[in-house]
């Protein structure tokens, strides 16, 4: 295990100063997520335009550095992407964080992937994987318009 790998500068930076931590005006999709184990909460807001492109994405919530950084980086990376692409990025990220050690999608640029890979350190901390994935599952739920609140315990 390596703390430096977990708490990389990008993570600490995004954890302390999360981007897009606000509520999108005129959002047309949203979902809530909750980790009952630690009480962390997140609410993701999306505004898709008529071409199903993410015009804006934002989140509100409270949580540890890992979960805030994850949500912050996520919102930065999916803005401007099409709904289909967002789903692909989400799946790729979830696979990366759980088993694979790489990102395979062809949507993100290399520097974006490098940023996202900063979160891969949580793999060595099984209890913390849920912190990193909560906002991503919540984003999926928002896109699918599912009314159920994401409960990271069901991971």
């Amino acid at each position: 295990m390596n703390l430096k790998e977990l708490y990389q500068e990008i993570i600490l930076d995004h954890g302390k100063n999360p981007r897009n931590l606000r509520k999108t005006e005129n959002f047309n999709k949203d979902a809530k997520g909750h980790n009952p184990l630690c009480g962390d909460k997140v609410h993701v807001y999306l505004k898709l335009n008529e071409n199903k492109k993410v015009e804006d994405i934002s989140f509100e919530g409270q949580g540890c550095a890992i979960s805030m950084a994850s949500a912050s980086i996520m919102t930065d990376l999916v803005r401007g992407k099409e709904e289909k692409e967002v789903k692909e990025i989400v799946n790729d990220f979830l696979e990366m964080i759980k088993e694979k050690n790489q990102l395979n999608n062809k949507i993100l640029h290399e520097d974006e992937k490098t940023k996202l890979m900063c979160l891969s350190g949580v793999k060595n901390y099984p209890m913390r994987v849920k912190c990193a994935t909560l906002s991503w599952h919540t984003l999926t739920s928002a896109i699918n318009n599912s009314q159920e609140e994401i409960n990271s315990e069901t991971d």
Partner: protein
Amino acid sequence: MNIQNIKKEFPIFKNKVQNNDLVYLDSANSSQKPLVVVDRIYDFYTKEFSNVGRSVHYLAVAATNLYENTRISVQKYINAKEKEEIVFTKGATEAINLVASSFGQKYLKEGDEVLISELEHHSNYVPWHYLRKSKGIKIEFAEINKNGEISLEEVEKKITSKTKIIALTHLSNVTGAILPIKQITEFAHSKGIPVLVDGCQSAPHMKLDMQELGCDFYAISCHKMYGPTGLGILYAKKKWLEELPPYQGGGGMIGEVKKSGITYGDLPNKYEAGTMATAQVIAFNESIKFINEIGIKNIENHEEELIRYGEEVLRKNNSVKLIGSPKKRGAVLSFTIDGIHPHDIATILDEDGVAIRAGHHCCQILHDKLDLTASARASIGVYNTKDDFDKLNSSINKCKKIFNSK
């Protein structure tokens, strides 16, 4: 009492945890186990195993005696009047569920009130919530004062003519406050209201005397008391155990079973349906012996000094904020650090072998009240030393360094 020697009784401290000496500050969650307890489980299964209370062969009789011996030890440990007042359960959670279910079934109806407090663990709220759903009872909350305590006056204020039972923790697993149970019970009884006490956090740390406390029900968690998991104890005054309906039905709890009807067994069998956690019960006798050999008063003194030291150390560390400042503090210290989430604290401390708990500690009502989603908690047992708090403090400083270094 030499604490270094006592630590040697716990095999877990002989091994490194991820290359570190273990600094175990999570005993409020569950305590470590002395070798005598572990050995007792092994010996029972390898040399003496049989089910209890059913067969007449040698091993069955011997096992039954061992099982009942623990009941007598518990009776003495908490100064209950009779051994029949001790019921084994799978945990304190089940003990409270038993009372809520059986008491609720017989005595609670729509509009009745159950008084609990904002300090309660979920296991002393959710079982009452079930009755709110099924019977339409109301749950009232005694509120904490600025020190994180529940005062007698606050409880008195919240009692109404509809209050049918009061259920309170003896020692908060978050703020460390010790509630004035004796005084609360006296007042409640003057109004004819029974009192249940969640004694999970008090039982391992302070002298218990059911005659002095006077409460009607007392729930204990054995795994927090240097004992095995899967075991808890419900103390209940005999009159309640006689009056209340059984909790679960099955073998061992019956008197006579006919197609036309059933009678229930004598106390405490009436409440111990099915095959119980036999090995755990038998091994728990060793936990009580272990505590008695050190002396609960000695444990109290050692832990009181230690927690005062811990509090001092953390108070000196600016940026650490303690949760609650009770006049008399039990064996827990909860805290937050500005700008660092408790989960991050716990992960970083863990790297140094310092095991604490982070989260809401099954007390979401309290965390909501304090406007927190989570906190960090250091809690002690008989094996902890001042050195553990020094290590905690230096790991906390490491956390601060990681998070300040941009």
